[in-house]
């Protein structure tokens, strides 16, 4: 009895780690699924800003994935309003972000100073809506949605932070005038996306 429960736990653990690796590396939201490109290009000029942004995004992605899953399961499906999911999720995400910001300001001024500026920006990040909708189309359970949201955030953070460190170096490179700035950033992101294709088949 105990043994079977242990092995069940193990397979569950393996399932979740596959979900995580899939979301972080194999189907990375930025470099493979091309979601959330605006903050990827916009907030990657400085490493410190990128770190704040990535922490805030991971936080919101996990929370929003969970909340949108609950909304879908307990509100939209019982009422037969599944076709309204896009609009409903936009609303949920906006509320979650706003609510987080308010709670953070009251309870932890330090955290608010670090993440606060980025929170309103994240509302418009398409990766957040993308995770919520993908969770539904992949029939994820509540826990799976939570893990998938966290994995998406971790993958976004990884790529954003590495990219920011690289862009700091690119600012001192002797890049030809027409390619300076965002252009060479885009090309770098494209080359990175090529390299990430090496992860295909990992899970």
């Amino acid at each position, binding site marked *: 009895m105990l043994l079977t429960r242990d092995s069940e736990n193990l397979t569950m653990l393996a399932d979740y780690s596959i979900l995580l690796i899939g979301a972080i590396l194999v189907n990375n939201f930025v470099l493979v699924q091309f979601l959330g490109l605006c903050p990827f290009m916009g907030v990657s000029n400085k490493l410190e800003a990128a770190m704040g942004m990535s922490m805030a995004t991971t936080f919101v992605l996990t929370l929003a994935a969970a909340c949108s899953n609950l909304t879908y399961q307990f509100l939209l499906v019982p009422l037969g309003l599944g076709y309204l999911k896009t609009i409903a999720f936009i609303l949920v995400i906006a509320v979650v972000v706003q609510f987080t910001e308010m709670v953070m300001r009251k309870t932890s001024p330090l955290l608010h100073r670090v993440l606060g500026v980025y929170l309103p920006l994240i509302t418009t990040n398409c990766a957040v809506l993308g995770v919520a909708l993908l969770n539904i189309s992949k029939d994820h359970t509540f826990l799976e949605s939570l893990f998938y949201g966290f994995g998406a955030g971790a993958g976004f953070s990884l790529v954003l932070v590495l990219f920011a460190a690289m862009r700091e170096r690119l600012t001192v490179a002797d890049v*030809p005038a027409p390619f300076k700035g965002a252009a060479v950033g885009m090309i770098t992101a494209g080359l990175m996306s090529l390299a990430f294709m090496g992860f295909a088949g990992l899970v």
Partner: protein
Amino acid sequence: MALMRLTSPHAHGPMSTQRVMQSVLLATIPGVIVLTHFFGFGTLINILWGSIVALACEALALKLRRRPLSFYLKDYSAVVTAVLLCIALPPYAPWWLIAVGIASSILLAKHLYGGLGYNPFNPAMVGYVILLISFPIQMTAWAPPRGLGELPGFMEALQACFTPAAYDGVTMATPMDLLKQNNSLLINDLWYQYPQFGRWSGRGWEWANIAFLAGGIWLLYQRIFTWHAPVAMLVTLGLLAAIFYDGGSSASGGSPLFHLLGGATMFGAFFIVTDPVSSAVSLRGRLIFGALIGVLIYTIRVKGNYPDSVAFAVLIMNFAAPFIDYYTQPRTYGHRNKRAGE
């Protein structure tokens, strides 16, 4: 404006770029000879044609940017990129494949970022990955090694390169491909059934790896690069292969010797990972850089879709190199240790 985060004292390099590049070229010679012995003239023709295209691309880029032509053409850096890419390409590759690869290496990966010394990615590996993803059929057509098939003569090899439509070559799965596709045979049976496996890691491949290792050790002796990145990569790769090797079941990932002497391991360790521009700068950073490349190579070889993964692993870690440098910068002379970025 962001400044380079590396502080003095800077050691003065006694060698010019030209000398360094010449040494790298010389060190590839044993490997190229072994490859030519086992796979015929294909690699040599790749290198000759590739170098011509590389010099032309370099001249074009310099002309467009109004830089002095002869100064930069004489530093051999374009030729080194071409030779490294052409060694990695399958022998008897068509001319256009080589030209596309070299053009993406030199123009896209090197001059678009500002030329020699600024490229964040290894140019040869950018060319290789672009080709592998765009032309998978041509890129996986390896000729059979000597003893397992007829080797084409020099004229036939020329024909294979420049009139590929008229050339009817023979190809054979490489040991890395066979191990990847195998799902029912024990390792011993696999070695018994396919003569490509040779003694340790593939007929021809094992000797090519040993030759590149010899070239690499000579470069190390010449102090062209430090030992940190290649040794960290080889040790990690060997350790991982030893830990996960289960003695030869059908699901086994191959023995440590197979991984260390198979595919592009030694070539990657001493000629690609050691690229001074696109790798991490600090010595501690280089250890981390090399070790993570080893981890990625093993993971993708065993679990991923691609049979060999040196190019992917190097590009992914090139991407991470500035971040690694940021956190491993050495103590400033005369100051105490401080956290990075403060």
